């Protein structure tokens, strides 16, 4: 070894800043180059306390399980029992969330309808109105009543099996929708009564009511137009779940839909998705508390969404007090969104399978979040429907497996007592004991 090397002064290792990480710096450079905020689809990608931070305890000497494949474990749910003449009955506690024609192709909407109908559950329109394909292939269709009122009309309203008044969504509580020009095709433009090719921004609040007192009157109007036949849902983002749920119930909602920050959107600002709203785990117990305080738990049904991926997540939502869940992103993945089979094309778009979220650009290689006729040809709605049905079946079987293991003959019989938490944060949010203890932060009668 040379003398020079022997006497070399030790060098510090280059250290990347945690604050100014590669991702942060790349975004600064992108912003500096373009002068526009990053717009993308999907929900929050940051790590937040989630259902994985909860575990079921299962049966033991003090609780005995049901036989895994033989004993009955019901999954049917009735939604809208409070005021509607015709509540919706679904076979499984999993519904398909609102996603618009415009953000999704007609074929993708058809597949959602096919899959949901085969599984015995409902699907939901989105910003942009009701399409013939969607109504035709959905045995139970929830019609969203959004601030934009694109395509809103009394005929479609009366064709719906339920109406969902959208006040907010988890990806962007307080924000409106976006549909950029690349996806405003002739048909989308015609349905929304907008010029073709514009970057369309939907309003963030309803044009003809403000506040809960007005909402009560708006719900009255919708009931009068539809003859009090169908349930009225009110959808809120995970902002202030206790108060929002309370006010929705007081305004006359049959069902409250609560969407956490992991819930997807077709397109909005990344800063909005990642920095506004709460994880769904932090919202469910607060919404249930509101319902219990009003003596309305199970009388007004609670549907929760935002990062529900499998039957364990479904079962955990049930245990925390929800009546059903709603899935959007997971349903798209089941259809084929972000599938590695398209990896070469994702690479060409500067991304990779699993990370593709530029849905607003309309270049989806899987032909799902696009209006491009050539790309849409890649997606088979019949095959998509089959895949979605299979996925919903698996989720349901998984939820039943867990419910039986906890000794429950209906998934609704799961309860917080069946759960423990792996982290302090999850224990505090879900209000279930930290694993190995009988305590959670904020537990009544205990000090911090």
């Amino acid at each position, binding site marked *: 070894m040379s003398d020079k090397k022997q006497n070399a002064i030790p060098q510090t290792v280059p250290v990347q800043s945690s604050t100014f990480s590669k991702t942060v710096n790349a975004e600064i450079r992108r912003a500096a*180059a*373009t*002068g*526009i905020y990053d717009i993308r689809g999907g929900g929050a990608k940051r790590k937040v306390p989630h259902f994985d931070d909860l575990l079921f305890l299962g049966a033991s000497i003090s609780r005995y399980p049901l036989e895994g494949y033989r004993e009955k474990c019901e999954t049917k749910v009735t939604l809208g029992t409070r005021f509607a003449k015709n509540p919706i009955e679904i076979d499984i506690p999993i519904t398909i969330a609102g996603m618009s024609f415009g953000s999704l192709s007609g074929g993708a909407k058809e597949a959602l309808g096919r899959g949901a109908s085969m599984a015995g559950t409902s699907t939901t329109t989105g910003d942009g109105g009701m399409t013939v394909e969607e109504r035709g292939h959905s045995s139970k269709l929830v019609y969203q009543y959004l601030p*934009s*009122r694109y395509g*809103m*009309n*009394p005929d479609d*309203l009366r064709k719906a099996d339920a109406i969902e008044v959208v006040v907010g969504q988890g990806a962007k509580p307080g924000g409106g929708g976006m549909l*950029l*020009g690349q996806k405003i095709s002739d048909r989308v433009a015609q349905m929304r*009564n*907008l*010029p073709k*090719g*514009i*970057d369309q921004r939907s*309003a963030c609040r309803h*044009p*003809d*009511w403000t506040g809960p007192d*007005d909402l009560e*009157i*708006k719900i*009255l*109007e919708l009931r*009068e*137009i*539809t*003859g*009090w036949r169908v349930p009225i849902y009110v959808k809120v983002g995970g902002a202030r779940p206790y108060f929002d749920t309370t006010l929705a119930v007081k305004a006359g909602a049959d069902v409250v839909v609560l969407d956490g920050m992991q819930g997807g959107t077709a397109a909005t600002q990344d800063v909005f998705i990642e920095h506004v709203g709460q994880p769904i785990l932090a919202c469910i117990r607060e919404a249930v508390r509101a319902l219990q305080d009003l003596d309305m738990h199970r009388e007004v049904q609670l549907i929760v969404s935002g990062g529900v991926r499998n039957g364990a997540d479904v079962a955990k939502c049930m245990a925390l007090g929800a009546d059903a869940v709603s899935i959007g992103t997971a349903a798209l993945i089941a259809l084929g969104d972000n599938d590695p089979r398209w990896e070469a094309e994702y690479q060409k778009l500067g991304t990779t399978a699993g990370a593709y979220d530029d849905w607003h650009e309309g270049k989806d290689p899987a032909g799902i979040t696009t209006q491009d006729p050539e790309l849409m040809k890649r997606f088979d709605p019949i095959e998509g429907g089959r895949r979605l049905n299979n996925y919903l079946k698996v989720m349901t079987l998984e939820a039943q497996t867990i419910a039986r293991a906890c000794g429950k003959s209906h998934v609704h019989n799961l309860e917080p007592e069946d759960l423990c938490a792996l982290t302090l944060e999850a224990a505090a949010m879900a209000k279930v004991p930290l694993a190995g203890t009988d305590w959670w932060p904020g537990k009544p009668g205990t000090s911090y």
Partner: protein
Amino acid sequence: MEKLDLQALGLRALNEKLQNQTDETNQKDWEIINPRGSHAIAVGVDAPINVTVRGSTGYYCGGMNKQAHIHVDGSAGPGVAENMMSGTVTIDGDASQYAGATGHGGTLVIKGNAASRCGISMKGIDIVVHGNIGHMSAFMAQSGNLVVCGDAGDALGDSIYEARLFVRGSVKSLGADCIEKEMRPEHLDILRELLEKSGCDAKPEEFKRYGSARQLYNFKIDNAY
């Protein structure tokens, strides 16, 4: 003429009677008495009938109307004729906020004044206001015509798309992307027809036209790279 007493009948039964009328109905004329400011009167009607409301109404009178000719012999609360598809709604008095919101078609005539957000997000409806309108009117107005024979408040036509706004009096301020535009002969023809139809004797030549500068239609992106 069939007379319906709202207080005696109740809202549901009243709306049901009106909603049950079809294109072929012989019962063309309806009169509603004792409205007493009730909400959601004559909503969701879909038949070529004439409905006269004797008195003032609450929220959403004539909401989502199709075909019917609804006449309010009084003033109207918020959201009158919201999301109207076709037909006419005529208000003898004043209208509260959000008049004609998101209307897709038909004609709304307000013989008095309209409050804020008149014609918000309108999508094809024609609205004629004989008096003044309040602030933020025609916000995000997509299509249709808003005619104001008096003055307009602040931020008229903010973020407007392709709706046409005609104002005879002053405009306190224009909203983002709303500008005064040339009044061409075809606009005078539209205006003349709407004024005549709504029983207003103002002259089209007295109006100015406002519409979109179309500068907000697409995001501004620096493409220097």
